[in-house]
Every structure is written in structure tokens, then in C-alpha cells.
């Protein structure tokens, strides 16, 4: 690759310029000169092809060395989501602290005025929050954030670990047919539900071997409960990751999520409240 013809060395392209040309890193006027020269010179064109071939060889070796070691992204991504949510909620607390500090830093008039404003806002906020709590609590008793175990005990198919782990999480979750959706809502005695109110969710997720069977489907409210569909999604990703990295038995994962998914979340995320609470 590197030999030089002494008679033409002044006019041939240097190794460095060849590499920079291949990488699109030459200034445009120089790139144009190199291009013209390459058309005219077989020797430099051969060196150029050798350079390209070396790059190809290296890139393949680089991927061969590391790609097999990359674990699936779903689990780490779920963990990152949870950590981001936690960071964000900490930041909100900080923000309130700053507001309070600011209040105490103000001169006399503001010291009297601002607490009054704060009190008014506080009362409004409290009324709003209690109403929301109340709405959540009643709705929670209506349909529950946990499925009725009599109606939805969970159903699985025979799957091997490699089957479960060969497909990324996002690709297994298909939509439930309209007729099945209606059946599930009827079973739970929910009339006139709008599509945006409930997700017909798998109790045991498909990526953990759960099936599209009425015994494995339940209406999960989208509304802003603490333990909502997004929290359960995070649990599913976490369990899938644990199963696929050999840290958890598949049947144990199926059992835990079917028995009490909220307890399972607390257990596998080592927390008493959803980490994605603020998202």
C-alpha cells in the first residue's frame, strides 16, 4: 500500500491525504485535485482501494469484537427511564426550595405579602389535589389498578427462554382485536368506555410468555393513578431483562406478575413507589 514511485512522488497523493479524502476531511479545493489525480493515476487508485479495504476490514473486526457482547437495550433503557424520572422529581423539590429561599430573601413588604399569596395558592392547590385524590380513589375502587384475579388469573403458552429473549420487547406487543376488547370490558362490567380511558393490557406480558386470551387480559386505566399502565410497562421490561440475563426464572416472573404486579414492581425495583411517578 505504501510504496512510492520516486519519479512521481511529488505528484502522487500522500497516504494522509488519501485517508482524509476517503473520510471527506479534505478542504474542497484539495479534494477536487485528489479526485482529478485519482482518475488519471492507476497507482494511486489502487492505493485508495487498499485503504478502503483496510478500513472495511477494521470496521468488521471492530464489530465482530464487541457486537456479540452488547446486552439487549430494553432493560437498561427501562432503568434509565426510572432514574431520569427520579432525577426530575428531585429537581422539582429543589425548585420549591429555591422559591422558599427567595421569599425569605425579600424585604419587609414582600415578607408579609408573599406568604398570603402562597397561602391562597396553597388552599386552591389543596382543594384541587384532594378532589383529584378522591377521584382517583373512587375510580380505583370502580375498576381497580389491579385485575380481578377471578376474571383474570393469567394465561401462558409453552415457550423457551431463547424464544422469549430472541425478540425485542417492542415487537411482541400487538394490539388486541376490537371484539376481544369489548368482551374484556363487558366481563369487567364497564359500559361505554372510551378507547382513551383503558388499555386492554396483558396481565402476563407476551414477552414473558403471556397469551392473547381473555383470562390474561384486563382493562387497565390510563388515567393518572400512581400505579398506571406506564409503570407496569416498566416492570415488564425489567422482568424481561432479568429473565434474559439469567437472573430470574421465567416461571417465577410469570407467577409474580400474575399474582400481584404492584408487589412485583416493589420487589424488582427495590422501591415502595413507582420510580417513574413524575413522568
Amino acid at each position, binding site marked *: 500500500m505504501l510504496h512510492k514511485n520516486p519519479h512521481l512522488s511529488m505528484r502522487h497523493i500522500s*497516504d494522509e491525504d488519501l*485517508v482524509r479524502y476517503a473520510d471527506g*476531511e479534505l478542504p474542497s479545493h484539495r479534494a477536487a485535485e485528489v479526485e482529478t489525480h485519482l482518475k488519471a493515476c492507476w497507482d494511486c487508485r489502487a492505493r485508495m482501494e487498499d*485503504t478502503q479495504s*483496510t478500513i472495511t476490514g477494521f470496521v468488521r473486526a471492530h464489530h465482530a469484537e464487541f457486537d456479540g*457482547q452488547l446486552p439487549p437495550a430494553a432493560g437498561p*433503557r427501562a432503568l434509565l427511564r426510572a432514574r*431520569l424520572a427520579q432525577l426530575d422529581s428531585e429537581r*422539582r423539590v429543589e425548585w420549591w426550595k429555591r422559591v422558599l429561599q427567595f421569599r425569605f430573601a425579600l424585604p419587609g413588604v414582600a415578607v408579609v405579602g408573599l406568604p398570603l399569596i402562597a397561602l391562597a395558592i396553597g388552599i386552591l392547590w389543596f382543594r384541587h389535589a384532594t378532589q383529584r385524590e378522591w377521584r382517583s380513589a373512587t375510580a380505583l375502587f370502580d375498576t381497580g389498578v389491579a385485575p380481578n384475579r377471578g376474571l383474570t388469573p393469567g394465561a401462558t403458552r409453552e415457550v423457551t427462554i431463547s424464544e422469549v429473549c430472541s425478540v425485542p420487547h417492542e415487537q411482541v406487543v400487538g394490539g388486541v382485536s376490537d371484539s376481544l376488547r369489548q368482551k374484556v370490558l363487558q366481563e369487567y362490567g364497564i359500559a361505554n368506555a372510551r378507547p382513551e380511558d383503558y388499555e386492554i393490557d396483558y396481565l402476563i406480558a407476551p414477552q414473558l410468555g403471556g397469551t392473547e386470551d381473555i383470562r390474561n387480559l384486563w382493562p387497565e386505566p390510563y388515567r393518572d393513578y400512581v400505579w398506571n399502565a406506564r409503570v407496569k410497562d416498566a416492570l415488564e421490561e425489567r422482568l424481561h431483562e432479568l429473565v434474559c440475563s439469567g437472573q430470574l426464572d421465567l416461571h417465577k416472573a410469570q407467577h409474580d406478575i400474575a399474582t400481584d404486579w404492584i408487589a412485583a414492581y416493589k420487589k424488582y425495583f427495590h422501591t415502595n413507589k413507582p420510580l417513574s411517578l413524575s413522568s
Partner: protein
Amino acid sequence: MPRMDSLNELPFPPLAAAAREAEPSAIEREVIALYGQFRDPLLRYALSLDLPVHDAEEVIQEVFLSLFRHLQLRRSRAHLRGWLFRVAHNLGLKQLYVNQRSNAKTTPDWARAMEQLDPSPDPEEELLSAQRHHRLQAVVQALPENDQHCLRLRAEGLRYREIAAVLGMSLGAVSISLTRSLARLARADGR
């Protein structure tokens, strides 16, 4: 090359616009989208620093938590790819130092890497390409560390100015380093 430039610049403006109003969940979504885009390249780079997989994965988590704080503070969104690799490089080396001190450094498992080569229908061809990979990997391992970093970063798509910023060297030094490394690889490849 124009394709690389568009790769570098395309993804950021729409995402940046979405997050400029700085509603926190928009930043979270942006960070997760960037994670989807850059997790594998960053993880490969962290592994190339000789970190064990679980440490490398943790380093990448830290990188994106730092990115979240960076965006929350409304710091510059220019050259985010270079920024991500720079943070990964620094945190990776720090972790490596900690591991070496606690004597927990693990060497890359060649046998395992070789097993995971792309399956080829022709066993003879497979053996030849495995041998070539092995030979090239050995040459790369023997290069000065900085030259290795340059090559790996270039293989992950970074432009020279980004590599220069990650490694704290000049543009000229990057192109000299790459030229020198490619020449050595070419010799090992029998050219």
C-alpha cells in the same frame, strides 16, 4: 462526506426544538431518544477501553444522566454526539482506573468474541474472515492507546473535529494518527 454530515446534524434540531420549551418530560423523552440512537456505539466504545460489560453499561447510564442534567441546565446542544463520546471516554477511563486499583480488571475474552462472529454459510470463508479479524484485532491492541481511541471513535462515525475534542488533540494529530494506524493494519493484512 455528505452522508456523514447529515447523520451528524439531522437528528438534533427537531429534538432540540421539542425540548426548548423545557418541560421536563420533553427532556426525558429527548434523552431516551438519544439513548436509543447512541447506546450501542457508546457501549462498543466503552468496551473497547477494556471495561467489563456491566461496568461499561453503568458508564453509559451515567453518560445519559449527565446529558439530562446538561440539557436541564440549558447548556449547549451543539455537537451532542461529540459531547456524549467525550463524557463516555472520561467516565470510562475513570472506571478503568478504579478497576485497576481494585485489581478487578478483566481482559477481553477473545474466545468468546470469536464465537460470536457473524455466521457464514461457507465454513472455509468463515475461518478466513475470523482469522483476518483476529489478526487485525491483535494489531489494534498493539497500537499506542491514543491511536486505538482514534480508530475506534472513527469507526463509530465521529468526524475528525469530534475525535480531536474527545481526546484533546489537534485535527492534524488525528489525521496523522489514523493514517499511521491504517498503514499498520494494511501491513498486517499483507498489503
